[in-house]
């Protein structure tokens, strides 16, 4: 990175951090924020409720991105979703199951499940086998996840994280079981495939809205506001960069 790129990155990070601090202040966090309706997320909430009532299992698959890779942010959202779903379904007869395609993610998913049950005062329900490494390579991950979707009485599937186009096989398996499936990925190829194969999919940064829509806390709602602000900042920077390039000023 050259000096200008480093400085722009620094400005964006400092701006986002400042906004997060300000919007998380008690006075501002009480301000009611209205979010647009995302039908896929409404469907997910309904399906989670139905699964808990009818004794179906919820399956969350959090992708194959290592927590050390640049694409790990989607895994963080996946882990937060696991936490919320485990708390929602702590009264269910069938505890949720989490699959992943990376060793670190499987350990973190077990830890997240344990933390969620502890928070819900239901630590006796915690079973480390519910956070599984399905397979360490993309296709072995899919091959290891398909039996979970097919044979563990799963009625709700949440596929959320870094996937390749092979995620279509998981969605197809869920479809054949007549189970609800919400799928979202940060990878462009997977998003295109999911748009064609999944009944409910999230496109682009909608993935990062999931914790806010699952009422994970005010900081997640503040994050969405920050994303909106930063988007306009990036648009302004792009227009400014274009104008400067047209004028022959380059860095």
């Amino acid at each position, binding site marked *: 990175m050259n*000096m200008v790129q*480093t400085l722009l*990155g*620094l400005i964006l*990070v400092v701006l*986002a*951090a400042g906004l*997060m*601090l300000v919007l*998380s202040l008690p006075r501002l966090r009480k301000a009611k924020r209205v979010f647009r309706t995302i039908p896929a997320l409404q469907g997910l909430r309904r399906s989670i409720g139905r699964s808990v009532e009818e004794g179906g299992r919820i399956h969350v698959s959090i992708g194959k991105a*290592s*927590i*050390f890779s*640049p694409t790990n*942010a989607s895994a*963080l*959202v996946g882990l*937060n979703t696991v936490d919320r779903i485990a708390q929602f379904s702590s009264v269910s007869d069938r505890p949720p199951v989490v699959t992943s395609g*990376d*060793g*670190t993610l*499987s*350990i973190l998913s077990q830890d*997240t499940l*344990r*933390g969620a049950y*502890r928070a819900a005062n239901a630590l006796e329900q915690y079973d*480390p*086998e519910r956070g*599984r*490494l*399905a*397979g*360490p*390579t993309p*296709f072995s991950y*899919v*091959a*290891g996840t398909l039996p979970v979707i097919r044979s563990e009485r799963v009625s709700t599937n949440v596929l959320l994280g870094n996937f390749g186009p*092979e995620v*279509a*096989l998981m969605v*197809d398996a869920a479809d054949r079981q007549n189970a609800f499936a919400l799928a979202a990925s*940060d990878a*462009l190829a997977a998003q295109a*495939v999911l*748009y*064609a*194969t999944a009944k409910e999919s999230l*496109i*682009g*940064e909608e*993935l*990062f809205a999931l914790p806010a829509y699952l009422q994970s*806390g005010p*900081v*997640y709602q503040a*994050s969405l506001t920050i*994303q909106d602000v*930063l988007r306009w900042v990036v648009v302004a920077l792009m227009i400014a960069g274009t104008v400067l390039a047209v004028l022959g000023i380059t860095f």
Partner: protein
Amino acid sequence: MRSPVAAAVAIAFGLVVLIGYLVPAGFPGADIAYMVRSVLVGWAVILAGVAALVGVLSLFLTHLTRITAKKNPDRYSILVVAAFLFTVGLGIYEYEFQPSAAQFQKVVLAVQVPVEAALMGLLVVTLTFASVRLFQRRKGLMAGVFIASALVFLLIGSGLLAPLRQVGPLAALLDFVQYLPVAGGRGILIGIALGSLTAGLRVLFGADRPYSG
């Protein structure tokens, strides 16, 4: 109550690595920041390797439990356990007694590659059916735009329209159209990057803790 020590360690290490990335070169202390960052990232890589090992062992134990389950034992798990033990045994033998593990790699790949190729074939069939059923799943303008753009860019990418490049203005038009998916993809990736930024900051602020401590 989650452990404050775990949160403090995560936040401190995260901040040090972030500073290592954002300090401009030539800035006082930049060399130290880069060095500390690379040491921490090196430790993280070692931890990732250990975590992968733990994950694989956990996978093995899960299948072992399924074989011995009193209710509905899973017989397919026998294959997984047998393949795992065979691969580990062969790997240890090769690395211990052979100068290079080339034969071992060859054996593993001779099984893995055809299996994955078969799954890719299955994926092609699944995607073909999905594209046919797209209009059953999604109705409205967006589905039409999706299909139309897929067809147009497939046609342009296939090279069938290459003769049209001889016609002056059409060449420029085709070049412009070819850039559209790149621009759209970048737009989506900018949104993903902004979401990633806020997700990372939540971890640094301790608001999001993907660890129970």
